[in-house]
């Protein structure tokens, strides 16, 4: 029995729409599952208090601070270094074997599992450099983890800037420094900021590497050398140990909302800068 091509198309497209529907249903389900169970418990007191009884009661303020410190510091350290490296690789060197090798290396490291960075950070920062389980160990480890990604995305963004921009700038008498900083970087900004925001998102979500380097202390960190627990880790521990499901859901809700907000910000930034540059 020969099925007509039109019928085949209808079947195939119908099947694919079903797959699409299932995909979205699953993703919406995951978000809804967490938010429905968790949002009712996210109160102002929850966000501003410290946890008691291992997190069974109380709030998650130290975790919010901890996440902020660990992820924020990681990106604060990695972004300038990464962008500077990308600038150097694309603007101040000639294209050659060395740059290809570096690019390949950065690509590989960007794909290396975070657990390996965690292992390295634990042995190197926490133990060998005697930083202990601390915000500092955690953020330096995460900084190393996101550095390759920032280098690569910044480099791609910089190289995407048309050469004409550079030529015009130099033609108008600008120095290389002025060209790079006022023209090239400005144009590459959307791509660069996307990379940085993505890295921030990745740092916030990271659990295994953070557990081993920043530790899992419940108290408010009073210095960079104190251990601290991040939101993702707190959620993991609360839910695994069955300590408090409502609090676990609430923590996850805060985490998800933060990440969604971050992504929206990235998206908005990109739109705005793209429009500005007129691309």
């Amino acid at each position, binding site marked *: 029995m020969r099925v007509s091509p039109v019928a085949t198309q209808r079947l195939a497209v119908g099947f694919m729409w079903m*797959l699409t529907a299932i995909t979205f249903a699953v993703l919406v389900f995951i978000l809804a599952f967490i938010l429905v169970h968790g949002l009712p418990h996210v109160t102002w007191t929850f966000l501003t208090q410290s946890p008691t009884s291992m997190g069974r009661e109380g709030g998650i303020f130290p975790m919010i601070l901890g996440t902020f410190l660990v992820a924020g510091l990681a990106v604060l350290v990695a972004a300038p270094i990464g962008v500077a490296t990308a600038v150097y*690789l694309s603007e101040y060197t000639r294209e050659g074997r060395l740059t290809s090798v570096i690019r390949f290396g950065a690509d590989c490291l960007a794909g290396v*599992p975070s657990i390996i960075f965690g292992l390295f950070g*634990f042995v190197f920062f926490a133990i060998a450099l005697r930083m202990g389980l601390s915000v500092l160990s955690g953020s330096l480890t995460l900084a190393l983890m996101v550095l390759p990604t920032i280098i690569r995305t910044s480099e791609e963004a910089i190289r995407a800037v048309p050469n004409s921009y550079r030529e015009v700038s130099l033609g108008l008498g600008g120095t290389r420094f002025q060209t790079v900083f006022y023209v090239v970087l400005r144009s590459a900004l959307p791509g660069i900021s996307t990379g940085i925001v993505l890295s921030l998102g990745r740092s916030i979500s990271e659990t295994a590497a953070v557990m081993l380097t920043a530790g899992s202390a419940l108290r408010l960190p009073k210095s960079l050398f104190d251990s601290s627990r991040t939101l993702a880790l707190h959620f993991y521990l609360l839910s695994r140990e069955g300590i408090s499901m409502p609090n676990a859901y609430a923590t996850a809700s805060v985490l998800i909302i933060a990440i969604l907000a971050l992504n929206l910000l990235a998206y908005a930034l990109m739109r705005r800068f793209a429009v500005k540059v007129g691309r």
Partner: protein
Amino acid sequence: MKRDKVIGAILLAIALSAISGLALITVFIFREGVPIILRVGARQFFLSTDWEPSLGHFGILSMMVGSLFVTVGAAVIGVVFSMGLAIVLTQFSPPGLSAAVKPVIELLAGIPSVVYGFVGVVTLVPLIRRSLGGPGLSVLAASVVLGVMILPTITSIAIDALEAVPRSYLEGSIALGATRWQTVTMVLLRAARSGLVAAVILGMGRAIGETMAVIMVAGNALDVPRSLLAPVRTLTSNIALEMGYASGDHRQALFATGVTLFVIITLLNVAALTVSRQRAGRRRAK
């Protein structure tokens, strides 16, 4: 001009420290991991399923098989769904929909793996246990959860690959009387093949590196999994479970596992790169 030179020098210094920092990690991991592989013997390390750190037995075969099964399973699920999604969005829906949906998909890539793992443990695992048997913590559970997690990765790269195919190809096919679906299967997918394959490879790379979600749903048993419903331990879970307390040889063995993962991911990256370069090469030749 002088300022230029100074800036250049500073940038060089920063770039060098960044690159050397990253190189340090690579060297460190290899330096910690490789000696034990040599000491235990490569055949023993890679081909033995006997992992008993307290007795000094370091064979990672069950974990390698575990990672393989779970990654392939995730790739199968990821491919089926993301191809459907990508094709439907680029070919069979109103223009602009794919641009609107892409950020939503990327948004979902940002959800932490612990959340995926948790939802998996609470909903998927009992479902598998009640309807299919076994403890629920299984290759199947891990594959499904990972498949969902790598979906955004594969989908966005696939959409890019599909959209990069010149319209002329598609229009030509339609002009010759093919239906849109026939155009998709006979022209579009062929033309975008390298990009699609690269998407899958990169998705697999992400799946193989995933840790937390897998620990939560895979069961972490040391046996080589004999069925989809059997519990499984992956290379990454093994590192995460044991690195907190491993010391001496045991810790080095975990670094060696890290080296293995590093090499596998590098190979996957090379594969993806080669495949996408092929496509570019073919394009240029035309």
